[in-house]
């Protein structure tokens, strides 16, 4: 698939020549990518390939240094209203990063109340709805420390959902989970796509990538080497680097 040189304003996310430096180190190397509404993108690649940096650029937790990032036709740069951007692009982390001093319910209502100015009762109603969607409504009054890893990750997803985002970024969401919890999270992520939410997920979980992704983005050394449907990627990778990567993954 050949992309045009200018970004596509009709895509949910359109990226052209996106680069990022840490001092002299090139972390992201001229990435081009279009992601359409409701798409499930999985980013694969060896450690240090720039996957996490890449998705952190999408909500500007890490600002990019050059290139164009466009979300719903709006250029994201240093003049962008970050509050609005982060309202429409949610994020879920590997270590959940729940607020330990707040109950599950308060974790879900804090940002909507502070950032969006939603009343407590409205925020709680929304939170309870999403908590039931991720099947932990009964844990609403507990503190994060009382929950298992899988349960905490569901709360983290519910917390992101409470901001009503159009896009959710997942930064290795299952890396700290046991296989049983992983399948639960996979189910939830599938539901998100059905609701029209675009997901971009960094993972090392091959089965997960295979079953959930609409397209696989394969990265190495800050550059995107392949963008292909999962069947093609896993059976007939186009680049030598992807073949080595897959061989190593399967061996482990």
């Amino acid at each position: 698939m050949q992309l045009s040189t200018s970004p596509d304003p009709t895509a949910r996310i359109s990226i052209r020549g996106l680069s990022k430096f840490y001092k002299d180190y090139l972390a992201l190397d001229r990435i081009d990518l279009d992601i359409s509404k409701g798409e499930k993108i999985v980013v694969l690649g060896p450690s240090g390939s720039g996957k996490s940096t890449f998705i952190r650029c999408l909500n500007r937790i890490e600002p990019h240094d050059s290139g164009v990032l466009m979300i719903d036709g709006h250029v994201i740069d240093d003049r962008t209203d970050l509050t609005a951007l982060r309202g429409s692009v949610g994020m879920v982390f590997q270590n959940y990063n729940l607020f330990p001093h707040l109950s599950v319910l308060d974790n879900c209502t804090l940002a909507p109340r502070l950032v969006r100015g939603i009343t407590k009762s409205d925020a709680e109603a929304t939170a309870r709805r999403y908590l039931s969607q991720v099947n932990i409504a009964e844990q609403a009054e507990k503190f994060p420390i009382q929950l298992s890893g899988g349960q905490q990750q569901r709360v983290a997803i519910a917390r992101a959902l409470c901001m009503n985002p159009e896009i959710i970024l997942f930064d290795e969401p299952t890396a700290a989970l046991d296989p049983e919890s992983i399948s639960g999270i996979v189910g939830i992520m599938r539901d998100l796509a059905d609701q029209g939410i675009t997901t971009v997920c960094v993972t090392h979980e091959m089965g997960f990538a295979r079953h959930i992704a609409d397209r696989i983005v394969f990265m190495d050394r800050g550059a995107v080497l392949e963008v292909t449907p999962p069947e093609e990627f896993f059976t007939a990778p186009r680049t030598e680097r992807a073949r080595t990567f897959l061989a190593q993954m399967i061996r482990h």
Partner: protein
Amino acid sequence: MLAAALLALAVLLPAARALADDLPSFVHDGQLTLCTNPTLPPMTFVNGSDTNALAGMDIDLARRLAAYWHVALIPQTMDFEGLFPSLSAQRCGMVISGVLRQAGRLRNYDAVAYLDSTVVAVARVGTPKIREMADLSGQTVAVQSGTSYAAQIERENDRLRASGRPPIILQQYPTEDQVVQQVLIGRVHAFISQDVELYYRQKQLGGKVTIILTPDYPDFHQFAVYIRKDSRDSALLQKAIDELSQKGEIAAMAKKWGISGDHQSVFTERNAPSRFDFATFFGALFSTAFLKGAALTLVIALLSHLTAIAISIPMAMKLNGRDSIIRRLLGLYVAVFRGAPTLLQLLFIWNALPQFFPIFREHWFTPFLATWLSLSINESAYQVEINRAALRAVDPGQVLAADALGMTTAQTYRHVIFPQALRIALPPTINEFISLLKTTSLASVISLQELLAVTQIQVARTFQFTEYYAAALVYYLAMVFFFLFLQKRIERRFIWADRNKASADAA
């Protein structure tokens, strides 16, 4: 009309100037300020449980001088060592505090004598009399620090060493009552003081101690009023004292306070040795003086710590941040104020600061403000390290999560970082506060009437040190236990950090 007013002014002005000509320069704004250390009865002490009610020969003289110059007397109490620094810092116009007229002090200050006195060496009853100070060779002797007795004993020691004999071992204590106590409890052989003090202490000391020597030291014959060097002021003060002396007023004051008669017959009166006196103990415990002292201790500690916390939070955030000039300056601030003794900082702010900035010798700069200022600065240097550690202990992922939810930096600190840092900072902070509560006792050196200052003043008056120390202890312990209890209560709110407790609470 205007002419009449000018005429009236012309008549009044020379009169006003004539009056001003008669006033020493240390009397101004209608006030005569006095520095005194009220722990030396009957010269200067607190007679009763109200620590503001000064009494004694020196206080009467100061009042009479103020009346003589038609101004108000403003007394300030402080530790003996603080008297001359305060005089130099222009915190007061004169020092009357049972201070002897001595050549050494005359180099820096002017002095006018007002009362004759004799130096005495006192030991426990039954101790044989001695012929000269050299007979105390090898013995331990207590004196009040800041007094000239120490220098005198050093001169004796030089002679002793020259003749190959062991020197007199010297111990110095901040208040006269502690000096006497050392003899009473038998730690030291003798104490050196002036006969006038013994007249007053007859009741408390009768039957317990005896005068073993009245050495003839030329420098120890007269009590004097000290002022800053100024020949005109000195002459005016001499004139005033001479007039009062001629009218017999000074002799009358001395008589009023029992300063007369033969010092050898002082200790004829005998008292039964006292045990722990519960009436005194409970009297002290429920006295307004102790209550006020404890309240002052609590208020100054709370205010200082709150101020320290308020300034140390932004400091900690800056110190945890990127390297900058400000960060380095803050690092220096922390090093200096943690490094220098708290007592030194108090003394510096109270006595040295006015020499650089005259504004700090004005009346608004009270011992309370000075203590608040020094303890806040001092405590902030300790608190900042607690805050830094607590802020650092919060997982950076928390900031990332708050960021990703669109929260502002202020919202992130207020709702995410501070509540978590508080849990980590609370136990060491309460620890610091308890330490600070006790550090406030240092402020007695700059005349703050906190709990320990009140205690010492009462002990100086009555010599019932066990009872008053016990009362002070009760207050300190009560305050500390209250804050430990408070800590436990607050920690209950942090169940979120403990899986078992959180689960137990839910069940």
